[in-house]
């Protein structure tokens, strides 16, 4: 018997396959992927373009569902048909950080950070941090809270996006090329934030092409043609 069966995983993908299209136009993005992510893990998902990294991230983030196989997030099965529950799971347990930040320029930094809470139907019971506390976590001055995203630098925007991702106290941060739009200094700063969040017990999954970014992870998974071809601890 696998002793890990009784352990709680932040994410558990079993034999996940994802096929897009139908008939002759089918594209298989993931083929029988098995992946478990433990609490406090810092996982890097690497691989060439078209290997299925983004599809894996979308399925982990409940933004997409597998064609076959099962997904559990923080012990809760992700329903294939129930979109409302998937959205609720995403809002409660997942924090997203995108390459393009995707902040709302009409809102202030403070309002952007608070935005995910507007959609929250329930919390996981823990106290939600104030914007001032969240901004401190990403090493930014509180004075920036009242600025608009258009009034701060790219590196600062990505840090605000990380603070927003942390707003609902998620079980896992999913980061899609988080340093893709940043220079090296800002990339280092952002990765330093991920390191400190991970040291504090946070679970982080980073999809990246960048070996420098991947080197921060405690485990690296390589995808090729939709399959996990290599899993290693760097």
């Amino acid at each position: 018997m696998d002793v890990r069966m009784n352990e709680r995983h932040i994410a558990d993908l079993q034999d996940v396959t994802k096929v897009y299209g139908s008939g002759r136009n089918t594209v298989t993005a993931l083929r029988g992927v098995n992946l478990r992510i433990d609490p406090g893990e810092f996982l890097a998902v690497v691989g060439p373009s078209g290997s299925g990294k983004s599809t894996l991230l979308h399925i982990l983030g409940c933004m997409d569902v597998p064609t076959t196989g099962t997904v559990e997030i923080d012990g809760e099965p992700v329903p294939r048909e129930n979109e409302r529950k998937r959205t609720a799971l995403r809002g409660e347990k997942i924090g997203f950080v995108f390459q393009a930040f995707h902040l709302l320029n009409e809102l202030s930094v403070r309002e952007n950070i608070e935005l995910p809470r507007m959609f929250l139907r329930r919390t996981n019971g823990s106290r939600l941090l104030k914007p001032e506390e969240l901004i401190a976590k990403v090493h930014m001055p509180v004075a920036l809270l009242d600025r608009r995203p258009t009034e701060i630098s790219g590196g600062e925007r990505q840090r605000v996006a990380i603070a927003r991702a942390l707003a609902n106290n998620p079980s896992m941060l999913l980061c899609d090329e988080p340093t893709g739009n940043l220079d090296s200094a800002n990339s280092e700063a952002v990765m330093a934030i991920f390191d400190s969040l991970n040291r504090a017990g946070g679970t982080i999954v980073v999809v990246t092409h960048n070996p420098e970014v991947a080197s921060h992870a405690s485990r690296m998974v390589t995808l090729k043609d939709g399959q996990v071809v290599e899993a290693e601890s760097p």
Partner: protein
Amino acid sequence: MTGRSTLAFRYLWRQKMRTGFVVLTFTAAVTVTLLLTSAIVGTEQTFIGEINALGVTWIYVEPGTSNSAAIYPLTVGDAQAIAHNVSHLSAVAPIMIDGLSVNLPSWGKSLSDITGTNASVQTIFKYGVSEGTFALDWQGNLSAPLPIVVGYNIWTHNDLSVGQELPATIVSLSASGGGGATQVNLIVEGLLGPRGSLAGTNLDDAIFTPISALEDLTNSISLTYIFVSASSSQYVSQVTSDISTVVQARHQGYQDFTVLSEQSWVSYVHDQLAQFTSIISLVEATLLMLSSMSVFVVMTMAVKDRRRVIGAMRAIGAHRSDIMGQFLLEASLMSVTGIGVGVILGTVVAGYLKANAGGFYSYLLTNPMDLGAYFYELLGILWAVGFLFSMVPAYQASRLEAVEALSSL
């Protein structure tokens, strides 16, 4: 905490032109509809109220019919024939309102629309003199003073008294009058008590003079209408029929005049207003369609512009209902703002017209609440239509998948 309304206001503010366009269409729809409706409802309430106040025994005769002009003019002779040959009458008042300009140097102003009539008009219009008499005795000689009976507003504003003589130059503006000027001395014979408005005419602004004098001054025998009062409501039908017979005989058998009783007058007014109501409904429907299309087009453009924002919001936990609610809120804010501005503008314009334009505009209702249920129905329908037409784009926004929306260019 960030609110949906904050987000909605910011997006609406960012797209000022689009927002302004939608608000403007709703404002126009409400303003125009309110003005037209308050005119119709106000006219119906006031006009018919004034007619009803005259009682149910009066009968009105006017030259021409709804289909043709008069062949023979309505004359004082017709009025006298009615008085002599029709039974059960209490009063017959021939009325002549011709285009006379009366220049009064002592007042420093001109008056128009002097009404030629006789004393029976008091019985029919239900008012009378507070000082002097309404005898309107005239010698048939324009060199003698011309008696006038003056409406309440005229004599109170000009400090007139009974017996006062006023030198005047009278110019007939009608074709028959030839535009000649006549120097006369007006003499105040009677001062009328306050009466108010009747069918669009403020009787307190009226000046009455003997009808024969007006005939001489205007060189015309055409009456504007004849008012008759039956002695009792039970005779109205018979009197109406008899008037038709008498006048038709005098007009060589031609039915080239119209006889209306109070009841048929009210029906006539209702019919006329119903025609207006149909036109107004068409205008309202057009404005409603414009408002609906404006909110539909603007919200569709907003959804197209904000696909990545929608994707980001979905990614950070927004439910489909959150996205839909956001767009519906924005549409509602625009429509409600437009409706609110329209109500204020409609009320202000109605008040201004009523206070300054006079005439027909005096019937305008200046308080939208006076429209009763119609007012709330109008606002409800406008808001509901705006809401319904924004549902399609809002629904489309809510159906966007996060992954698909985030990958939008």
